[in-house]
């Protein structure tokens, strides 16, 4: 799903919530996933200048059961110079509150971030069932 306007953030948020609910996540977990998707999408738009957000279910190879949900945010923006600093509570380059990325990390179970200055940023967050 492409993120290029504010309306796309809400659409991504809705889509992530729907996917979480169809996978049988609890209401609270679905809410967490939706919020995380919304935060990541907002980051993609405001810091990365637009990009993509993918949400997909992770299945067990043998039993075909849904194990979790993965949210992947991608942008080709300026990148993050100091990832540790970006993950620090209350630190923000923009006008935000500075709790987006650390918040997503707490909301989700697994969190990975890769970034290269000048090339873009990729954030992957997983919530297990």
């Amino acid at each position: 799903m492409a993120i290029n306007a504010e309306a796309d953030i809400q659409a991504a948020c809705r889509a992530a919530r729907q996917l979480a609910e169809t996978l049988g996540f609890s209401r609270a977990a679905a809410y967490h996933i939706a919020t995380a998707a919304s935060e990541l999408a907002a980051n993609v738009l405001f810091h990365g200048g637009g990009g993509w957000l993918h949400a997909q279910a992770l299945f067990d190879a043998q039993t075909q059961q849904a194990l979790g949900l993965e949210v992947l945010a991608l942008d080709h923006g300026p990148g993050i110079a100091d990832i540790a600093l970006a993950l620090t509570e209350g630190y923000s380059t923009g006008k935000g509150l500075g709790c987006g990325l650390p918040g997503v990390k707490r909301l989700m179970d697994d969190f990975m971030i890769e970034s290269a200055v000048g090339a873009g940023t990729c954030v992957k967050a997983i919530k297990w069932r």
Partner: protein
Amino acid sequence: MTTIALQQVLHEQRSALLTAWITQVAALGDQHSVHEHALDALLRSLFDDILGILERQPTANPSLEHEESLALALRQLVGEQARHGSSASTCVNVVLTLKHLMSAQVVTATDVTLEDMLWLEQVFEQLTLLTVTAFLAIRERQITQQSLSLLELSTPVLRLWHRILLLPLVGVIDTVRARQITESLLEAIARYEARVTILDLTGVPVLDTSVAQHLMKTIDAARLLGTRVVMTGISPEGAQTLTKLGIRFADVISRATLRAGIAEALLLVGQQISPLEGKR
């Protein structure tokens, strides 16, 4: 150039073509009979414009963008159709109907050349493009207007009691809406000299940092005008998410339900709701 044959055919069949077109367009969709006269006049003027173009010397690439009167007639026609809920294909069909009628006439004529047919084809291609563009422009405008009116509808500031305002927030809060919410709330606070404002978040689907940030700014501004803010309707999941995000609403009274919020607000202005019997 051999357009004389085409011109002749079109000239001879002019009135027959026009009548046939009007009848077929009327049969096309469920055109409302009330507007038949207006539609007739529009089709007539459009017909004249189209014939005017067809009677010209063929050029390799006919551009109709500078045909003011044609574009105007087409826009009016499409506008009329769009207002009555016709689809884009119906609008295009109106133009294509005329094309079919004309080609049927032209094919049967004796000395019409391939160039003539090509010219007819090109002109109608451009006409179709213009029609679609006009239709999309009208739809676009409708959407913009609707979203504007939705925006106005969606932020009612209610006067709950003397000096108590209620702002029920329903739906997604983006930057534009947040600004409007703040504006209308501050205006209402100043007008009613409100002491307490209840901010009901029951209808907000997801509370994330951007929504929280918008709310904080609104609350801060409201406080500067001397009103206390009572937040209500944060769902259990929402509360959990907000704390996990690390967002803190300092100095804001929060109640789980609107009912508790109203009780709190009344208390803040020294009132309460009590049963009638107790008073007697």
